[in-house]
């Protein structure tokens, strides 16, 4: 095994065995899985029954409230005072009072409850009454509600992307934007996280003075590359572990409780005047739901439209490329200073392009084919983040190849410069280094 491989092995193992790595590797997927699972669990937990008594003095609406979403309605014939005392006895959670003048003056409506009122129930009641009032007003104005309903046409344009080879794909810009942002952000986080690990590693070797022992056995360049590659592999391992563990946890939950994840589209509750839609209408509505009207359906279809292998491979390539480019610079900074506090002055110019890329991601995902996006995805310092943001929208292979090539050239260049700084820096103690000094190291070594 070559010496660089020995170094890579140590750098990798010493980090992977750390408690913090194990904790992060387990916590990360748990956190990500939690983002998916917890809302589902919470939704189920909060679904306790809520009973509402209806005192309808107008006598018009009492029958218009179907039980729904664990909210149960009970029309009462008694007066409001009696209903409230029943509520105090614990028979109901809330009492809805519809006075005679409710239709003319909706603000006279009251919902009484002992505790703070259930927000969902309130929303439900408001929606039902709103529709009822509207439909009453329509009929009093002589407009046939059926006609009006037939006018209400949902419009949802299907965006179609036509590839060069004529293949047509439905386009989902919202999904692409989400994925683009997440991809760019992940690259940013990973470069920063593992780049600063390189910096700290180099600094540790320098301050502990082990570096002189090691460079009497290996070339400084081997030591630097060994560290950069070793830490990079740690990053890659962590990323892959996160992906697999997240899939495993979410998959496990889905297998254990599949009904939790079955998507049940909202039924159209606002059935006028308690009328049920005729079967044909109902069928038409259901079909439209299944096709593309619902968020979940769109999400699934949208995800399917993304070229996942290209996404994953690009992520790995642009993460590694960006990491190598910045990792070399981080290593150079670590070698040039004597302690962590001194790193600040050199960190800024390294951080700025990375931060700029992250900020520009917002702009890029709203105009992924514009000139700004195009240029930023070519410049090696910003391309890893920006390219990841653009890929979900579709980037031509020619552009991808050019960007990749430039990135490779970029990290070869930064590594070359960093090696010069590193070689001088690691053996230099007690000297306050500034940019002028660094430039001399690059020029003279």
């Amino acid at each position, binding site marked *: 095994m070559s010496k660089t491989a020995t170094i890579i092995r140590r750098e990798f193992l010493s980090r992977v065995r750390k408690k913090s790595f194990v904790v992060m590797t387990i916590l990360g997927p748990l956190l990500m899985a939690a983002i998916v699972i917890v809302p589902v669990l919470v939704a189920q937990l909060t679904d306790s029954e809520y009973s509402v008594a209806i005192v309808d003095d107008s006598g018009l609406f009492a029958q218009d409230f179907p039980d729904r979403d664990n909210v149960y309605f009970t029309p009462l014939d008694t007066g409001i005072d009696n209903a409230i005392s029943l509520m105090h006895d614990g028979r109901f959670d809330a009492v809805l009072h519809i006075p005679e003048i409710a239709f003319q003056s909706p603000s006279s409506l009251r919902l009484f409850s002992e505790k703070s009122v259930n927000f969902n129930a309130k929303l439900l009641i408001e929606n039902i009454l709103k529709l009822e009032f509207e439909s009453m007003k329509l009929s009093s104005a002589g407009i046939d509600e059926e006609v009006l309903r037939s006018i209400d046409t949902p419009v949802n344009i299907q965006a179609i992307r036509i590839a060069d080879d004529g293949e047509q794909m439905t386009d989902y810009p919202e999904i692409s934007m989400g994925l683009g942002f997440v991809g760019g952000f992940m690259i940013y986080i990973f470069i920063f996280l593992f780049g600063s690990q390189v910096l700290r590693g180099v600094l540790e*070797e320098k301050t502990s003075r*082990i570096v*002189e022992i*090691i*460079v009497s*056995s290996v070339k400084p360049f081997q030591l630097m590359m060994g560290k950069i590659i070793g830490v990079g592999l740690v990053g890659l391992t962590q990323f892959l572990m996160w992906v697999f563990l997240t899939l495993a946890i979410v998959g496990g939950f889905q297998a254990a409780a599949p009904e939790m994840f079955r998507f049940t589209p909202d039924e159209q509750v606002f059935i006028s005047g308690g009328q049920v839609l005729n079967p044909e209408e109902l069928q038409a509505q259901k079909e439209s739901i299944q096709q593309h009207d619902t968020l979940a359906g769109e999400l699934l279809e949208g995800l399917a439209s993304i070229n996942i292998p290209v996404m994953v491979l690009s992520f790995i390539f642009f993460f590694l490329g960006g990491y190598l480019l910045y990792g070399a610079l981080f290593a150079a900074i670590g070698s040039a200073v004597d302690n962590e506090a001194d790193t600040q002055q050199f960190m800024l110019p390294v951080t700025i392009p990375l931060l700029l890329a992250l900020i520009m991601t917002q702009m890029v995902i709203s105009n992924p084919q514009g000139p700004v996006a195009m240029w930023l995805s070519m410049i090696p310092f910003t391309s890893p983040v920006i390219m990841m943001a653009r890929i979900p929208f579709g980037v031509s292979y020619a552009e991808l190849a050019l960007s990749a090539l430039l990135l490779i050239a970029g990290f070869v260049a930064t590594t070359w410069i960093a090696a010069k700084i590193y070689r001088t820096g690691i053996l230099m103690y007690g000297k306050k280094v500034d940019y002028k000094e660094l430039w001399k190291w690059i020029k003279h070594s």
Partner: protein
Amino acid sequence: MGTLLEAGNISKTYRNHRALNQVSVHIPAQSIFGLLGPNGAGKTTLIRIINQIIGADEGTILFDNEPLKPAHVFRIGYLPEERGLYKKMEVGEQSIYLARLKGLNRHDARKLLTGWFEKFDLLPWWGKKVEELSKGMQQKVQFIITVLHKPRLLIFDEPFSGFDPINVNLLKQEILKLREEGSTIIFSTHNMGSVEELCDHIALINKAEVVLEGNVREVRKNHSTRLYEAELEDIHTPVEQVLDGRFQLAGTEKHHGTTTFRIRIPEQATPNELLQSLFTCGQLTSFKELTPSMNDIFIKQVTGAYPVKNRQITNSFTQAGQQ
């Protein structure tokens, strides 16, 4: 005895100062070679060049009669002055790692390390993290790592710093044993006592140049001030009388019936002649040459004058001359 390492006209210039100027040293095989010099003289630069950590601007280095090449690092062991270890890494694992960088395989490294750890009472610390070890123990580990791969050339830069006297002794024994076993040792230090004790040859570097090089005994002989110290009892004839102007009396000191004389012997005379004269004065109890110590030679070479202690002798000589 052949030459293991020969550096010829090595020059190295950093941006604003010359660290080494036409430095040549010959390091005989199987010897201990003292590399001396004040701070900033260029010793560390020379050592780093030999270790191929940095390159020389000019000059050649022959290692075992071959031009120095990267593969030679496996045959060199280097203990730097400023040395450390990975604090969070386990001692044994770290030693194996550093040994592997020197070209040993895992199995051999473990076997050799176990032997050395046993000898240095470090075995119970094998699985501990370095930060749990005392400074002395860390130094021992570093020493072991340096010598583990049985290098032809060992370079120790201030090896005794941070050791207690017992461990200094242990280390000295090991260094002498390594020489017996065939290693050549470059020994860089400011501790002149250990130079006299251990070194066969020295080179003194000052202001980027070699100002003195050679066998320790010869160096000291060359720096002889031809000053001798004689102790006499029961003096019946005044010493001044027998010296008769042939020898110069540099000082006298009386102590409990014993008189100590410091006498300088001129170039044309010998100690034997002085002794014969002294026999006639009384009972001679002691006679020895006052050779300058390496410490004195070092200071003389660097500052141009002997240190205060020896200046007393020269002073007493001047006083004697005035009498």
